[in-house]
């Protein structure tokens, strides 16, 4: 009986954890130099919104970070991100994905 309860709880935990894990993996954090004004942020947001995989873009001016939430099944390659941001006039200094991106998006540095 105990085994059955344990197995049920484990299955529920897996079911709950799977979407959370998927959410983490769907986020990209891009560190950008030259991000100093709302116009810059708007230009970047418009550039990234043209990608079919983009669900949401958040720009943190003070930290110089751009966070991209991806749509399910969608992705944007690092090379494409660098191209989009360079064409928007900015310099990419780092790209982080998944858990690393989620942790980075929450910090100021």
């Amino acid at each position: 009986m105990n085994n059955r309860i344990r197995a049920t709880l484990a299955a529920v935990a897996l079911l709950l954890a799977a979407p959370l894990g998927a959410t983490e993996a769907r986020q990209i954090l891009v560190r950008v130099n030259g991000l100093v004004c709302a116009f810059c942020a708007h230009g970047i947001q418009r550039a990234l919104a043209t990608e079919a995989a983009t669900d949401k873009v958040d720009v943190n001016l003070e930290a110089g970070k751009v966070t991209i939430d991806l749509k399910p099944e969608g992705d944007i390659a690092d090379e494409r991100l660098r191209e989009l941001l360079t064409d928007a006039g900015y310099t990419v200094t780092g790209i982080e994905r998944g858990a690393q991106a989620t942790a980075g998006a929450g910090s100021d540095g």
Partner: protein
Amino acid sequence: MPLIPRLAWATAAIGLALTPRLSDARPIAYADATTFMAEYSQSTTDLSLYYAPRFDRSYGGGWHRYRRDAHHGPELDREFRFLRINHLARRWNLPRAQANAVVWASLGEARGSEFRGSKGAGNLGFQLDYETLRIYTMLKSDLWHTSAYTHRMDVAQFGFAPYAHRYGGWATWLVAQAEQSSGALERETGGALMLRFFNETTWIEAGVDDDRKPRATLMINF
């Protein structure tokens, strides 16, 4: 040394001291943006519209008017209609700062109080600026030429933001400006204090000059 060149050099020196590289653009907001600009002061009125197909280039045109009333010398009225190319010649993206060098060239026609009808006119200018979330420095020079005269207008600005703004909110800046007209104009120097507010699409600036006359700028990106 006249006031404006001294201030211009001081602004440039501050910009250079803050970064080993250089300075930002206003007639080019971002790629695929259309920018409407309107500026009013005691002596000048400007209206312009530009489209930027890419982040470092915009095309458009406008109307520029320079007026001098009897208090500041012989009365004068000069008007220019022009087509312009703005080019971001160089951008320096720095950690938490940006610097830009922008140049522009215009062709058009001039009218005014000094001759009948219209004459062909040309304009060249540049802007250097350095900006962080809290400090803004800018140096701009605009040269207008017709076969009847050539005049130049120089502007130096220093801005300070009491807080670092967040995307989605309004930025607030306090801006001090020094300006000078020269060339075929009487050499005139002046200053102004302004409050600047902007968000991701709209820029509003209003203040008073040293004659206590109002001045304002509106810029909308869409």
